[in-house]
């Protein structure tokens, strides 16, 4: 008979119950998706709240990306639960001392906020489509108008006010949500690798760079697919954003690691053995050197040399891909790495990721790509590249 459980190989001394690896790759995917949400929303806010005009071409894309990824954030958690049908227990009877208890509220609030902001942002477009289209799709847009066809200057100004305030509220909501994910790990005192006060901010800044990088890649890909020129200024703006935040992300990560080593508390020998052994490539090479330092130096070089045009776009896109990879590695190194170091401080476990199964690699990949498929569908219904020209068009239609 196939064993129900799969034991994890280990070295040294580990507690017997630790030989079953409890948090799989899905738990690494979960903060990765949440981070992309927070990062993408940052871009949207930079345009909506802080008036970064050069980010206008990606402002709507950022909003839709944030929404699509947010919808999928709970899926890895649900798949991981022993009793997913009881998931709502956490919202019905939250146990407030738990760092996990407020997740349902945070996540629901943020999804509602995103839906509202998207609706206001697309209202003129929805009205235009509702008036123009017939059939099922027309009905879909007509339902979405919620009975309001008012696109007067006053109504649009009112919408703008809502968008602004929703975007302002969304900044602490998105970043709070992700900082909170970091707190879930940082607040656990059972694992030295996790137990860091810096964990929430590390998560936050890595989230921002990952979300902005995702938008660079999505924007470049969408322009290629639509066969339209890429707005160099916009890509430059995104590159500056990544460059600014990547510095903070690097410094925070380095500080956390330095703190851990310098304090040298119980179990540090095993941690050092781990980071210089099994974690050498995933942590120092993939996450730090290739994923963070290389893009940082490359972006610095391009900014210093004033690189522009195709070279800049290619460079920024490659850097973004590296950052996306690095941030995933960071999630992996935290979630999986933390469990690979035994609580005994005297042993190491070796996580073996299954290809198939409920918590295998295929499901993890599918869950990471699913929001992109959703984004493709949503972009068809709500094209993110219409930017403000709609309202005037709809107004013109309204006058006739």
């Amino acid at each position, binding site marked *: 008979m196939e064993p129900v459980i799969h034991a994890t190989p280990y070295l040294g001394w580990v507690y017997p*119950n630790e030989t079953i690896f409890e948090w799989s790759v899905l738990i690494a995917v979960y903060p990765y998706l949440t981070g992309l949400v927070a990062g993408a929303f940052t871009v949207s806010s930079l345009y909506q709240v802080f008036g970064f005009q050069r980010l206008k071409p990606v402002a709507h894309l950022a909003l839709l990306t944030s929404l699509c990824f947010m919808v999928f954030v709970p899926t890895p958690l649900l798949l991981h639960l*022993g009793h997913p049908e009881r998931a709502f227990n956490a919202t019905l009877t939250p146990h407030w*001392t738990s760092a996990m*208890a407020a997740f349902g509220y945070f996540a629901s609030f943020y999804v509602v906020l995103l839906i509202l902001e998207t609706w206001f942002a697309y209202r003129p477009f929805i009205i235009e489509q509702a008036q123009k289209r017939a059939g099922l799709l027309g009905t879909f847009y007509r339902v979405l108008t919620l009975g309001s066809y008012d696109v007067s200057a006053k109504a649009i100004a009112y919408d703008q006010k809502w968008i602004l305030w929703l975007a302002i509220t969304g900044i602490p909501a998105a970043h709070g949500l992700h900082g909170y994910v970091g707190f879930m790990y940082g607040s656990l005192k059972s694992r030295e690798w996790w137990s860091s006060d810096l964990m929430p901010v590390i998560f936050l800044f890595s989230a921002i760079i990952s979300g902005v990088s995702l938008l660079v890649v999505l924007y470049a890909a969408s322009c290629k697919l639509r066969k339209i020129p890429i707005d160099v200024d916009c890509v430059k703006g995104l590159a500056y954003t990544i460059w600014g935040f990547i510095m903070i992300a690097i410094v925070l990560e380095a500080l956390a690691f330095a703190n851990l080593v310098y304090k040298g508390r119980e179990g540090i020998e095993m941690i050092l053995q781990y980071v210089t052994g099994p974690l050498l490539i995933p942590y120092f090479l993939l996450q730090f050197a290739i994923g963070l330092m290389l893009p940082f130096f490359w972006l610095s070089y391009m900014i210093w040399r004033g690189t522009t045009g195709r070279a800049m776009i290619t460079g920024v896109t490659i850097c973004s891909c590296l950052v996306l990879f690095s941030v995933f590695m960071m999630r992996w190194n935290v979630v999986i790495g933390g469990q690979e170091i035994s609580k005994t401080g005297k042993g190491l476990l070796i996580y073996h990721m299954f290809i198939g199964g409920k918590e295998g690699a295929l499901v993890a990949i599918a869950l990471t790509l699913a929001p992109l498929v959703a984004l493709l569908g949503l972009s068809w219904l709500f094209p993110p590249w219409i930017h403000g020209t709609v309202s005037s068009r709809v107004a013109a239609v309204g006058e006739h």
Partner: protein
Amino acid sequence: MKEEDRNPSQAARREFLSKLGRVATCAGAVVGAAGLGVVSNASGKSEPASEPASFPTKDYDWTQHDWAFGVDATKCIGCLRCVEACKRENNVPANAHQFRTWVERYVYLEGEEAVHIDSQQDPVNIEASGSQKEFRFANRYKDAKVEKAFFVPKLCNQCTHPACVQVCPVGATYRTKDGVVLIDHDYCIGCRYCVQACPYGARYFDEERGVSDKCTWCYHRITKGLQPACVEVCPVGARVFGDRRDHQSPISLFIRNNRVQVLRPESGNAPNVFYVGIDKEVN
């Protein structure tokens, strides 16, 4: 977990939901009746909620006890009867990876600084026992020069400030008034945050039931006046259990007559398993 181990808060929750149901039914009836122009007095009377069944065992009052556990490592011979008894008593999965209690072996060899630690789940030991249901320590050091060696039984510390209870998002795990940390298996969502939070590795996840599980000091037994299964079967009295409120109980005497220590006191969890005869390497 046994039926009687359930949380009284669950009973309160049920009562609340049942009241809510009655209120909803009554409200529906009133609205319906008002719609017909006949306002009945159906909502005027409601039966008092039935008293929850005596918890967890009839006539047992959990405010009258303060359970604690002692381990005398100098007595343990590593026979592992406790581990097997626990598995049988509590339906712990019959494998070599999930335990409510386990025994650790510490061996210092001559000329070596590092201690050798293993437990019954070690593949060498499993090979020696030839089964994942019966356990024994392989005689792996018979040809070595042993300087010092001892066994340390481990189990849930039923902490006064349990990290596992703190992190449970639904309150499915809780500390009883008599000092035992229990899990409501009918309410646990299986997120395993508690498994991660326990610094002692005392919790495991039961894949078949989809819930976390751990030692309860055999709560279903101690509330009936019995000893935990592991204490009952220990042939050398290495495991001591009792009520701290009774000053002549075995545990009170154990704590009073020995210099006891707890595991990982720096965690702030305030464990309630007291050890005698352990070494600096034990945590």
